[in-house]
């Protein structure tokens, strides 16, 4: 693999204009990645789903070359209907369009850089991979006191031009004081098998609000990894909702640092998996200062041969008194072959805190099904009703009503 990595790396370097310094940075990341390779089961964070095995099995040999000079055609049929929105469109890992038509252009600043260094500590070879191969880092800066009028949808799409390729992309967001951004990541359907590695950095200043909705609903054969690093200032709020249903493999990782007092983080997730899908959510919420709050709710519905995993960690620093941390994961196993794994973790160094977690898994309650059938529903309908009710609980946590309705429509949930 390392030969392939090196030759693809140099191929990309040849086509892009970067300074010597930037080249050295990228080279360092590449070497770090070559040394550690794809994460595997031996690493604690990858214990449940082994990405290196999954890539080997689903894709085989991965190519790392991506031609960023060549533009791709935008298929407008993928656009979300019934919701006015700003757009960023990624096709095959290349930004094809950035459109903030609904916004005051003076309040949003866009830059792109070829320098790909990472400013925080991590132990994750996929971030090394991303930093070595990411073409450009787009930075989006929302100025003080500005709330976007419309949500921003980022489309992630691939077409049949590329296959068995590793795509890396990165976006950095900075939300100025008292600003607000609603961001939807929208993954479209396709059949090509690629490994997509997404890395977002968010920096939330005082009183800023971030709402991030990740929607992976439509069946596709891609393997995806998404990493969100969120830094939060005083009184800021981050809300993340994950719908994890479409890809063959998807791991969402959220690393959230509550640096400012009265900041809070919410992570809600839904797994709805079928045939051979393997998905995971891993969260790390670091409570670093007094009076911070976090809330996590993850629910899974698991069909035949599917597997979901939830690893959630609440870390409370000894300074972080009066922390309120909560974690709940629930799973319904529909088939003999489905599997649910959880590792809800608490690491606490302060005494005046309220932290709790819960995890429950099992099959659908036969009594409830019996009750519904006695009311005239058939078995299938009763089952669906119960599952919908189970999942609706998480969707209802979405604080933006417009987006909540959109997501309900996409999932096909009715109230």
């Amino acid at each position: 693999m390392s030969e392939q990595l090196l030759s693809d790396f140099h191929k990309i370097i040849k086509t892009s204009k970067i300074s010597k310094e930037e080249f050295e940075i990228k080279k360092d990341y590449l070497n770090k990645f070559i040394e550690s390779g794809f994460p595997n089961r031996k690493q604690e964070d990858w214990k449940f789903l082994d990405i290196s095995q999954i890539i080997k099995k689903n894709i085989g040999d991965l190519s790392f070359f991506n031609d960023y000079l060549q533009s791709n055609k935008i298929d407008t049929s993928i656009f979300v209907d019934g919701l006015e929105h700003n757009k960023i469109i990624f096709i095959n890992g290349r930004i094809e369009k950035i459109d903030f038509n609904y916004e005051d252009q003076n309040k949003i600043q866009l830059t792109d850089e070829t320098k790909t260094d990472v400013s925080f500590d991590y132990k994750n070879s996929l971030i090394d991979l991303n930093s070595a191969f990411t073409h450009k880092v787009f930075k989006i800066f929302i100025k003080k006191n500005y709330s976007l009028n419309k949500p921003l949808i980022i489309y992630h799409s691939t077409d049949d031009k590329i296959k068995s390729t590793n795509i890396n992309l990165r976006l950095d967001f900075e939300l100025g004081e008292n600003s607000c951004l609603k961001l939807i990541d929208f993954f479209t359907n396709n059949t090509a098998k690629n490994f997509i590695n997404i890395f977002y950095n968010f920096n939330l200043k005082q009183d800023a609000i971030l709402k991030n909705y990740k929607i992976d609903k439509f069946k596709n054969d891609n393997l995806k990894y998404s990493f969100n690093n969120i830094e939060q200032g005083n009184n800021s709020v981050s809300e993340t909702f994950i719908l994890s249903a479409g890809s063959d493999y998807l791991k969402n990782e959220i690393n959230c640092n509550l640096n400012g007092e009265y900041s809070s983080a919410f992570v809600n997730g839904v797994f709805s998996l079928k045939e051979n899908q393997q998905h995971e959510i891993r969260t790390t919420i670091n409570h670093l200062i007094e009076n911070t709050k976090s809330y996590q709710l993850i629910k899974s519905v698991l069909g035949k041969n599917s597997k979901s995993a939830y690893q959630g960690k609440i870390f409370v620093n000894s300074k972080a008194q009066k922390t309120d941390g909560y974690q709940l994961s629930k799973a319904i196993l529909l088939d003999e072959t489905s599997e649910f794994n959880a590792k809800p973790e608490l690491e606490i160094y302060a005494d005046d805190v309220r932290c709790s977690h819960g995890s429950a898994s099992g099959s659908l309650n036969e009594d409830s099904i019996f009750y519904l059938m006695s009311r005239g529903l058939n078995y299938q309908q009763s089952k669906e009703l119960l599952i919908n009710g189970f999942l609706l609980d998480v969707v209802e946590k979405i604080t933006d009503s417009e987006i909540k309705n959109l997501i309900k429509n996409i999932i096909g949930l009715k109230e």
Partner: protein
Amino acid sequence: MDTREKDIEKLKDYKYGFTTDIENIKAPKGLNEDVIKFISNIKKEPEWMLNFRLKAYERLKLLKEPNWQKPKYPKIDYQDLYYYSAPKSMNDKPKSLDELDPKLLETYKKLGIPLQEQARLNGIAVDAVFDSVSVATTFKGELTKHGIIFCSMSEAIQKYPELVKKYLGTVIPITDHFFATLNSAVFTDGSFVYIPEGVKCPMELSTYFRINASETGQFERTLIIADKGSYVSYLEGCTAPMRDENQLHAANVELIALDDAEIKYSTVQNWYPGDENGKGGIYNFVTKRGICKGKNSKISWTQVETGSAITWKYPSCILKGDNSIGEFYSIAITNNHQKADTGTKMIHLGKNTKSKIISKGISAGFSDMTYRGLVDINSKAKNSSNYTQCDSLLMGNKCGAHTVPYIKNKNFDSNIAHEATTSKISEEQLHYCQTRGLNPEEAVGLIVNGFCKEVLQQLPMEFAVEAQKLVGISLEGSVG
């Protein structure tokens, strides 16, 4: 000074911290084949036993010491330890208690284990292990009447080789992890219990462990077999003298429950925890594992862990028989610089198996406490269920409390429920107790005992009283 304070005064400096001057026979320092042969030879073991040890040693050479645990410790030099230490007077084994070295008897009296049968009022049969060898077993006559075998491991190897051969290493194989394999290679003594078919053991069986000599590791091995339809309750207590250096304790405990049998295993662990600056103390790296081999069998672990500089153990249940039950009740208390990483594993293999985990952790001072557990329901374990509750209590902001449960559900008929909370003693509760005339320390003692009640209830009566006292004493000086 009221009696409680006196108690505290007496116990503040680890009550069991005395050493006894007894001449010891030691194996040469270090770990090698010769030492293993020496141990085996001095114990007059048959050849199969020596082979078992050597096989384990071969395996050990390939293994690496694990390092994923939370409490880190300085590297142990395994060549700088004595692997065998026995009181000299034991060389010619005493036939009865009267022949025991009076100094040994005195030691046990200090520990509060009167070996003299006549001194026993509550009828607990005791097997006492001093450093590496088992020195005396009480109530033999009574037990023999029921066909119960309760003796030291070395005696069992001589007298009941068939039983030992059949079961030793079946739950914790010699290919297990580093410390378990080390134990398989160099274990010196321990207790052996066999309860025949249909017998309900009429009294509590108990072992008392004590490490006396310095620079010794204690490696005892306990094997308990409950044959069909039998019942046994087994207690274990531990102490060690105060020493500046750290001492290693790596025991293996294997439980085997056949059809309809029940084993209840209770531990009150009070090894020397080191001084308030974290110097010295025991490294308690113990492997305890039970298998519910037969149908409708049950294994229940209860532990009160208040001692040791580092406690690192996970008493586990393998629920292989259909309808078998595994239980784990634990109180772990860490104070000063103590560290604990403890919990359990419940591995569900049979149908309709049930398990329950109740864990209470209390950390104070500069200590660190981790609950780490695994619940694994296999795809064949239809209609199984698990309930886990782990609560942590923190006192002060210099200590840590962590919860790391692993939950694996591969069976859609089965249910797993897990709950965990972390909190501190609320001001309201403290205030209420104080308005009723308790001083702050008594109030904390009362609240903590209430917090632990669910687990303390599981202990046999005499142990429960001792444990309750220990809970209070361990937290001494952590209030305020």
